[in-house]
């Protein structure tokens, strides 16, 4: 029997980590992910896990210690946010290139500057090309479930890549909600043991890790890394199917909400999906055919699948909780637009909304504004402004684009 509980997103993540019982957790405090190592160190102090908790002096060392631990054949985990993730940057790429399936809880927070401890996706979006698999979570339940699936995906022999499970700082990390937990034994059986063939501690078969890789071989190694990310797609679905059998909860690359007969749809990540679903329901009551596509897997990017899913709509709004500062749209927008373009003309009209930066509140009314703009575009066939800021309080932004 599943266990019903009430937990915050951070606590749910820490509970998942306890059930996984990794060999090493190396972490450094940073708001809003700090609670995860806090909870976890109490599990260590109480003897509830067998883990070595390494209270490192920085996130750079957290990721460095994870690399050492994972290369030594252990399971290594960490948790971080924003500047902490940025300080890990160099080592994120190294962890991926060394094909070390480290698992991280990334509690999304605005990356400095200016300093802002609240939520947006500028931290993990900045790491989108670091070679890490990225899963996003709408709520505490998804953060928990994604964490339980993380090792199975990362450690799959076809994959062997690190993975970060993202959730929105404060909005889900600190909000206490109902959750359904799995029994410890069931988690243990599902996650399984980590038994890598090659690791530093095998005296009978010593290895060297992290070479100088000159032009003769480097390209092939990077291509193999890219291939692993491509293969992660089928593994993610395979693991989700197995997870559904034991949990009854179903996951794919994305969730489609009331899209069957929808004319327009929004695409977004994480907790705003809850707000968007509420707005969709309200607009549906008014007879408006609107839907939502909530992306769960951003790396690998399910380009074919997302293009196929969005194909039928007349207009699509891609919602970015991070700006690219490229004068051409946020990261999710450019990838979705590129997927649609590669799929071929004509497809839906597509617009971009940058929203919720520094955790500017996003209300149901904001999402209703977005949907009404989309319906306008669908009816007229005309896109007024492609790049828009939602909920920003400046005249200049209003002049340059749409604004609720």
């Amino acid at each position, binding site marked *: 029997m599943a266990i019903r509980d009430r937990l915050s997103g951070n606590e749910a993540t820490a509970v998942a980590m306890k059930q996984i019982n990794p060999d090493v957790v190396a972490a450094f405090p940073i708001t809003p992910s700090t609670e995860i190592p806090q909870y976890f160190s109490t599990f260590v102090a109480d003897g509830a896990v067998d883990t*070595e908790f*390494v209270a490192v*002096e*920085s996130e*750079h*060392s957290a990721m460095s210690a994870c*690399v050492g631990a994972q290369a*030594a054949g252990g399971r290594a985990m960490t948790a971080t946010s924003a500047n902490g993730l940025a300080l890990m940057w160099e080592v994120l790429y190294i962890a991926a290139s060394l094909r070390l399936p480290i698992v991280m809880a990334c509690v999304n927070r605005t990356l400095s500057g200016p300093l802002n401890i609240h939520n947006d996706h500028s931290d993990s979006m900045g790491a989108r090309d670091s070679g890490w698999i990225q899963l996003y979570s709408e709520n505490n339940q998804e953060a928990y479930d994604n964490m339980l699936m993380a090792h199975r995906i990362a450690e799959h022999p076809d994959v062997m890549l690190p993975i970060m499970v993202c959730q929105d700082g404060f909005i889900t990390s600190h909000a206490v909600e109902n959750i359904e937990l799995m029994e410890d034994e069931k988690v243990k059986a599902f996650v399984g043991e980590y038994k890598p063939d090659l690791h*530093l501690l095998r005296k009978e078969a010593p290895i060297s890790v992290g070479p*100088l890789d000159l032009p003769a071989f480097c390209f092939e190694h990077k291509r193999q890394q890219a291939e692993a990310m491509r293969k992660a797609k089928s593994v993610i679905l395979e693991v989700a199917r197995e997870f559904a059998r034991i949990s009854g909860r179903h996951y794919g690359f994305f969730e489609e909400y009331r899209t069957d007969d929808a004319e327009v749809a929004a695409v977004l990540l994480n907790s705003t999906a809850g707000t968007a679903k509420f707005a969709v329901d309200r607009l549906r009551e008014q007879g408006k055919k609107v839907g939502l596509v909530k992306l769960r897997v951003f790396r690998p990017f399910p380009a074919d699948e997302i293009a196929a899913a969005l194909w039928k709509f007349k207009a699509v709004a891609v919602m970015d909780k991070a700006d690219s500062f490229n004068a051409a749209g946020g990261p999710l927008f450019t990838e979705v637009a590129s997927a649609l373009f590669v799929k071929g003309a004509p497809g839906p009209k597509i617009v971009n909304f940058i929203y919720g930066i520094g955790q500017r509140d996003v209300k149901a009314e904001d999402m209703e504004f977005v949907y009404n703009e989309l319906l306008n575009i669908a009816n007229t066939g005309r896109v007024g402004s492609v790049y828009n800021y939602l909920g920003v309080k400046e005249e200049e932004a209003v002049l340059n684009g749409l604004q609720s």
Partner: protein
Amino acid sequence: MAYSLKEAAKKPERFTGGHRMCAGCGAPVVVRHILRALKPEDHAVIGCATGCLEVSTFIYPYTAWKDSFIHNAFENSAATVSGAEAAYRAMKRKGKIRGETKFIAFGGDGGTYDIGLQSLSGAMERGHNMLYVCYDNGAYMNTGVQRSSATPKYTDTTTSPAGKKIPGKQQWRKDLTEIMVNHSIPYVAQTAAVGNMKDLYEKAEKALYTDGPTFMNVLAPCPRGWRYNTPDLMDINKLAVETCFWPLYEVEEGRYRINYKPRNKLPVAEFLKPQGRFKHLFKPGNEYMVEEIQQEVDRKWDRLLRLAGEV
């Protein structure tokens, strides 16, 4: 058993020849001899910071390391090895690992005194059972002889050139050995490959088989950066010690011991003169530089004598 170079050299090599370190470089001599201090039955996990030692010993698909080896980045050799050591402890507790594994991290002075200082300090403070070895050649040699905080005052490097107005590096070198002593770890040693390398071997053995974090700062001359005659490596080491530019000492549980006191302390000029990086010090009008360095060497030697209770 008393140390004998002959016996030590008979042990199977754990760091093989064929690597690409320069002839006359101190670092591979130091590494090879430190690894000789491992018990043959013990496995080792060796980490290394980015630098000459790493890029010359592990070029895909070849490795010179017979033990397990890991290179991560420039500044995180200590943190990386600390993670491996933590995994070892966890896995040993779970009964997944048998036998003894020793953990060693290597870094040059750039990767240790400068960019890796935080990572080193953190790993030592946390008490991991590991040895950190700094091979100190007094500059960023791998990138082409740039000054580091280990570079001696007035040294001519590519980022502290001896120019018409500024005669080389303007600052004294950081005393990393003392910084590590102040971490209150069980064992800190300063050594060099001199004579039959007894000092280096015995300190390595002690550091490897002392429980907890240990640190060794080892002088490792660089023929390219120091500009000495390549075959003179061992003479340069000897002069560093005989002039007390690089005293051999150790600090065990806070107790200082000087391992070698020159009977005839040579003037520091003897150490400086054979090196091209100090050539400008011997031009007429620059005598004050050598005098200043001599005063600093004397001051630090006196301080060390006092700390060791020798005066």
